[in-house]
């Protein structure tokens, strides 16, 4: 088995290519969290959207760190925990986390 230092340039390049290919999915999932947070702030987050958003947060939490976005994973985990509750107790905090998540993954967007 190779050492960590031997994840070579070609492999790094392949990892970057996978990230680029799946970037649109990540963007869509973060957008879903934005929409869920906005709905929560308006008191209009229904169960279906909350569960869908929790699923998106779960998938983001499970994948972002793989590409080195460890802060993104941490924020997505925090968002998932909030969305797994029957109702979002702190909609503003959810909104802030969604904004932080977007900035952590796409600083220039």
């Amino acid at each position, binding site marked *: 088995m190779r050492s*960590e230092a031997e994840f070579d340039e070609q*492999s790094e390049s392949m990892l970057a290519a996978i990230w680029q290919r*799946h970037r649109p999915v990540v963007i869509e999932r973060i957008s879903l969290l934005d929409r869920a947070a906005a709905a929560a702030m308006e008191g209009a987050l229904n169960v279906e959207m909350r569960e869908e958003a929790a699923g998106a947060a779960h*998938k983001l*939490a*499970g994948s*972002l760190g*793989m590409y080195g976005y460890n802060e993104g994973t941490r924020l997505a985990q925090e968002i998932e*925990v909030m969305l797994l509750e029957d109702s979002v107790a702190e909609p503003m905090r959810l909104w802030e986390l969604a904004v932080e998540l977007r900035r952590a993954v796409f600083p220039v967007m």
Partner: protein
Amino acid sequence: MRRILIIDDEEDIREVAALSLETTAGWEILTADSGMEGIRVAAESSPVPDAILLDVMMPEMDGPTTFQRMQENAALASIPVLLLTAKVQGVDQRRFAGMGFAGVLFKPFDPLTLAAQIAEKLGWVTG
């Protein structure tokens, strides 16, 4: 050479795990995007995989159910299965205890160390 089957509905998880295990360990990788497909791939593999990485949350058939189906197949029942989970809550670890899994690996995994984690969980000697 070890043969590993990765069952996960997320395409990028499968791709990164495959890249990681092929690159860092030189293992042969099979993939499946669902529990049903995973059972089919495992059953048709000759020889059967040395280990299976199995996502917990998948549509239609989740990881634990997939595992139970495999246990009902004599050809697959002895393959060590490592669960892959992004769960943030400790409740899942308690749920999985005693079900017969070889271990639990957490997502996101580090592509540089995934093979070493698998080898450690399965007691495989590496060098």
